[in-house]
């Protein structure tokens, strides 16, 4: 049995290590890494006449992704990527704007109330995401009070609903991911060193300066952790755009899904999936770098 504390290695220790980690590692490698690798390989295959991948390997799927198809070049995929990015940034931004003060408020509440308040924030996310979407479908459908109000205000055409629409998608994303921002922010607010606020005031900072220098830097690690937890899944979100968007303005997740679940072009879908993974990784790397640069300790981030 290897010593939990010691750094010594040996055959017995190796056996111990393997006994513990092998099931997990093998599980993930066989049931996730291998499928992912297979999917990636599909991206380089030829699209068969009915959408299934075939040999030989080609770049065709990536060409199609870049916009080259039977029609010559088309910007349709750029629309999709752009729409996805805008929704992601918008949703993340809104989530921050809502979660920041709320997390602060919870952290200042009496200690015995805090678990309850956190629970109240988290509980909706214990239901299934499809169920959360139904709620919004109910609320935003045509003829509901909210839709009528929006129509009366001239925000939408009369007789139309707020759902399905891009607005409903944004709202659904914000709703879905709010708890993932509140929790890490709460964690940093809870151990906020208020002496830094005092120090800023003591050194001549006004309200804004005290916030900018006494509060914001301390909460950055939480903000970044929250951003990772919100932006990355929002970027790949499928259910909400699909249900609340009416299937008319595709986002990346639906574009990928459709190549497997409807339109049938597996290589194209796989190529788009590859791009999604790369974009996700790039986003993660950037956020981690940013986190380190801004002085968050490595443990805070995923």
């Amino acid at each position, binding site marked *: 049995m290897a010593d939990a504390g010691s750094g010594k290695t040996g055959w017995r220790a190796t056996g111990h290590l393997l006994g513990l980690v092998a099931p997990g590692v093998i599980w993930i490698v066989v049931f996730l890494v291998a499928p992912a690798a297979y999917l990636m390989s599909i991206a380089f295959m030829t*699209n068969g*006449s*009915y*959408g*299934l991948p075939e040999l030989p390997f080609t770049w065709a799927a990536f060409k*199609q992704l870049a916009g080259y*198809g*039977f*029609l010559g070049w*088309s910007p*349709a*995929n750029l*629309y*999709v990527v752009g729409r996805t990015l805008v929704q992601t940034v918008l949703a993340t931004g809104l989530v921050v704007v809502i979660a920041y003060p709320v997390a602060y408020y919870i952290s200042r509440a009496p200690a015995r109330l805090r678990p309850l308040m956190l629970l109240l924030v988290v509980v909706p996310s214990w239901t299934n995401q499809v169920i959360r979407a139904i709620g919004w479908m109910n609320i935003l*459908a*045509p*003829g509901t009070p909210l839709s009528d109000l929006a129509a009366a205000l001239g925000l939408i*055409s*009369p*007789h*139309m*609903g707020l759902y*399905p629409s891009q607005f409903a998608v944004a709202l659904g994303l914000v709703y879905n991911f709010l708890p993932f921002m509140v929790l890490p922010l709460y964690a940093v607010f809870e151990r906020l060193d208020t002496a830094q606020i005092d120090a800023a005031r003591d050194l001549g900072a006004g309200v804004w300066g005290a916030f900018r220098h006494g509060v914001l830097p301390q909460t950055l690690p939480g903000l970044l952790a929250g951003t990772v937890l919100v932006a990355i899944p929002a970027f790949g979100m499928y259910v909400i755009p699909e249900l609340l968007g*009416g*299937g*008319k*303005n*595709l986002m990346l997740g639906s*574009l990928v899904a*459709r190549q*497997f*679940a*409807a*339109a*049938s*072009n597996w290589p194209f879908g796989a190529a788009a999936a590859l791009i999604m993974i790369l974009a996700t990784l790039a986003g993660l790397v950037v956020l981690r770098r940013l986190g380190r640069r801004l002085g968050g300790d490595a443990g805070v981030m995923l």
Partner: protein
Amino acid sequence: AGKADTLYLFSWSQYMDPALIKAFEKRYDVDVVQNYYESMPEMFAKLQAGGAQQYDVIVPSNYYVPRLIDTGLIQALDKSKLGHLDNIAERFADPAYDSHNSYTVPYQWGDTGIAYNTDKLPDAPDSWAILFDPAINSDYPFALATDAQVVFGAACAWLGKPYDCTGRDAWKAAAREVLATKARDNFAAFNDGTPVLRQLARGNVAAGMTFNGDFTYYKSENPEAFKNIEFVVPKEGTELWVDVMAIPAKAPHPDLAHKFIDFLLEAKNGAQLSNHTYYASPNAAARPYLDDALTHPPAQPTPEQMKALHYIPSLSGDDLQFVQQLWTEVQSR
């Protein structure tokens, strides 16, 4: 549970009489597990992704049959196991999509039209204009179907071409028309034929593409909710379809599948099915048992309407790829 075997049926939703399932289960002491799809592309994708070895009986539409055969997703029928084959009406005995019914047996047939709300669109003509002409409906939300060929056919017909138009130029023109329609303020969503009826009833949309039988079924089930919903067969021409039964290539219980198909070919059972779904029956022997409703529109189109009805062409190769890319393009923009 506890039964000798299980039959996996993969079919359109709202397309089967539960009593028939019970009867079949009882006769052969088996369980029937049903799964549903709302469109052909959905079914085809599921079959490609492993479904071919999980379902025993599927119910595709005519224009998907050739590609199911081509891709080897369905198996040739063992006609020796189908004692009631002769019940099939002559018109359906040797169809273009499957000569001599080597792979398929017809299930039911019908047409695709438009259902709309007469309160909101009182002046609606029997035309694709309900969907494509902003002058007819400028305010109320409406939907188009999710199957590329179904929608492009409608656009072709609206643009004055035949519903079964083919050729890249025709499809491009159709795609442009769909894009323009999608860009309209009151375009709500892409909804499939059966679901859109519920959306109509709930008031979420005022018009959409649907099927004659489903419309009649809902209307008779729930007259109150559907009292203002009407169905038209657009005069510019629309789809005539035949849905068929087939057995996936690696079906787990091919024997039982044959039994099921033969069961539905029985005269009384064929009639019971149509009486339940309000779709016309391809079963000649069933005729005596059919309800009256099935002998006139909308279940049975008028001869005049018949002239404007077309099968959707079966596509493959580049043509299929072309249509699919075009459709992705339409949804992406």
